[in-house]
């Protein structure tokens, strides 16, 4: 968002020897413990555009990477309550205004019998928000990504653990980033082309 408002300095574009634009540098680590420690080092080095890729959510990695909270719970709560409200409104309008019918001599807008459907619609809207919000906040679906070209990366979904620091990171520097990853205990390091 800030990028839209203030013109940021043009980033340095790095190229490989073959002339391809560099997306970032990825390093493999052997175990969840090692990658957690490495993530702490990368975080402490002040990087901002980087990520840890692992076949499962590593316990405590959010702290090791220095994440802030995700807004998905708030989105679910707001849209869920909207759904419940709409559900109640629908029933109130249909039963009390559009098509009033005497059922068991109850007042047309007696709210008690509206509770089950109000509840169900609240749940329904929340569920759609949970899945839709997860995809939206994660910018998915995204069928293309530079990392997918790397054979090593395709094994993350099996058992590998990889840190990738993007070239767009202001702190990215081919030599220093490599040194940082090496000192963090990477077992292999390679450049990722855009």
């Amino acid at each position, binding site marked *: 968002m800030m990028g839209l408002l203030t013109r940021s300095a043009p980033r340095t574009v790095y190229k490989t020897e073959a002339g391809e634009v560099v997306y970032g540098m990825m390093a493999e680590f052997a175990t969840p413990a090692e990658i957690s420690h490495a993530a702490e080092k990368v975080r402490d080095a002040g990087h901002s555009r980087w*990520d840890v890729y692992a076949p*499962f959510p*590593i316990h405590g990695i959010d702290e090791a990477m220095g994440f802030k909270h995700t807004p*998905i*719970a708030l989105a679910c709560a707001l849209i869920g309550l909207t759904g419940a409200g709409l559900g109640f409104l629908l029933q109130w309008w*249909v039963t009390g205004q559009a*098509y009033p019918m005497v059922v068991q001599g109850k007042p047309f807008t007696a709210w008690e019998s*509206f509770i089950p459907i109000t509840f169900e619609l609240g749940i329904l809207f929340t569920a759609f928000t*949970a899945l839709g919000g997860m995809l939206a906040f994660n910018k998915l679906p995204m069928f293309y990504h530079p990392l997918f070209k790397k054979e090593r990366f395709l094994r993350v979904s099996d058992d590998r653990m990889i840190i990738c620091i993007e070239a767009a990171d202001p702190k990215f520097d081919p030599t220093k980033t490599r040194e940082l990853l090496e000192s963090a205990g990477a077992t292999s390091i390679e450049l990722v082309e855009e």
Partner: protein
Amino acid sequence: MSTIHPDEYGARRAAGLEGAPIEPVNDPETLDGTIIDDPSTRPPLVLNDRSFHDITNIVCGYAENKPGRWWMPVFGLVATIASIGGLFILYLLITGVGTWGLNNQVDWAWDITNFVFWIGIGHAGTLISAILCLLKQKWRTSINRAAEAMTIFAVICAGTFPAIHVGRIWFIWMVFPIPNSNAIWPNFRSPLLWDVFAVSTYATVSLLFWYMGMIPDLATLRDRAHLEHMKNPNGRRLLPFLPVTVSRFRASAYGLFAVGWRFSSRHWMTYERAYLILAGISTPLVLSVHSIVSFDFATSVLPGWHTTIFPPYFVAGAIFGGFAMVLALMIPARELYPNMKDLITVRHLENMAKIILVTGSMVGFAYSMEFFIAWYGGNQNELFAFINRATGPYAWAYWTMISCNVISPQLFWIKRCRTSPVWIMIVALAVTVGMWFERFVIIVTSLHRTFIPGQWGMFYPTIVDIMIFVGTIGIFLTLFMLFLRFLPVFAMSEIKNVTPQADPHAGHDDHAHDDDGHDSTHAQTEPA
């Protein structure tokens, strides 16, 4: 720079350098090593020290390799049953509900019995995926995917019955509040309409939950297919005349549904939160759905239906019947795919047997309480309805229900029974039968002898009744067979996450076989 595999042992074994893993434990006390009564000891959730790669191989193997010889005949059989059921549904739609055995007195019978039966089956799946998730029961990870799949297939079968029982299926849209030129609207004070919303919400939320849980595993299947394609770009073709290899097709098909998931930790964080929210809302949802189903009966004035115990009693019964179905599906699957035994241990079976024992006893308590209140409430009609259930013309159904639902689970007090797959299977099948009869007893015996003896009648099912029910069993099993064949049957990422080597705070000992002495992450079999 060399690549150090996180699990050398697994890698060596995959490369054929290491033979079969550890000798399977076969101890009379702990069976496969998981039946440990000492609460200070955590039995392993995955046997044989499986590495991450092993877990991927096992689970993806079901979807990637040709299935055993049993698959095609079984699939053919259940698909035939499903098709026959479909033809009978077609016949019913063309001819009308007069082809069922319903009559003026018993105007709800097999249709609603089957509906409640199937919707109840689904509840175990949601219980495992949602409630056990909130309670942090790690053992759920090996059974949740299959149980959620079962939920969706059961809800599909359940939804068939209300739709076809309306008689004029082309008016089914009238159950939804859709503006129409007659300016009429559904009655929102009717529990039957609540049911429409509850069941459709339940089906949708279960599907979303199932799908979201599957995204990472579909991505694993995608990546493996892609690697296979890179390794062998001229592999087997999908069809002889199409220039598309099987692996290319699989990568695209799984890839489409995996929405480009790339296992990013930033994604995982939002994903886990969203998963927790879904679990959190599914918990009250599952309780509400069967409560609302029970309102269909409880809010009427019919003796035998008009009771306040119905919502909790129905929910307990649903979970009871659902767990029985999970077991009835997973025990044979576990025998047919022997390496499933590493993921679904005897401990998992025992845990589920214990839940069956608890919920079965709740159901038994509810049966006796209903009877007690019928007498204690002093309402003649109510008491008659219950005495008629136990001694009237449908007494055989009532006593089938009691013996299957109340007596048979009591076997699980005996440790040898609740840890033996054969015994569990027998009880699970008995419970499935019993739970069908429970709904039959509630619905038919309450209706067939109501207030005026002149109206009394009997219900006899016709061949159409029977074949449509059998057909839904076929539909259910067909869908389950397809699931076993093409989708990740286990939640791989979740299972990997509960293995000891996934713990980042366990030092550096992540090898399945680490001989430097501090394998504190592994299950301790000696008492602490």
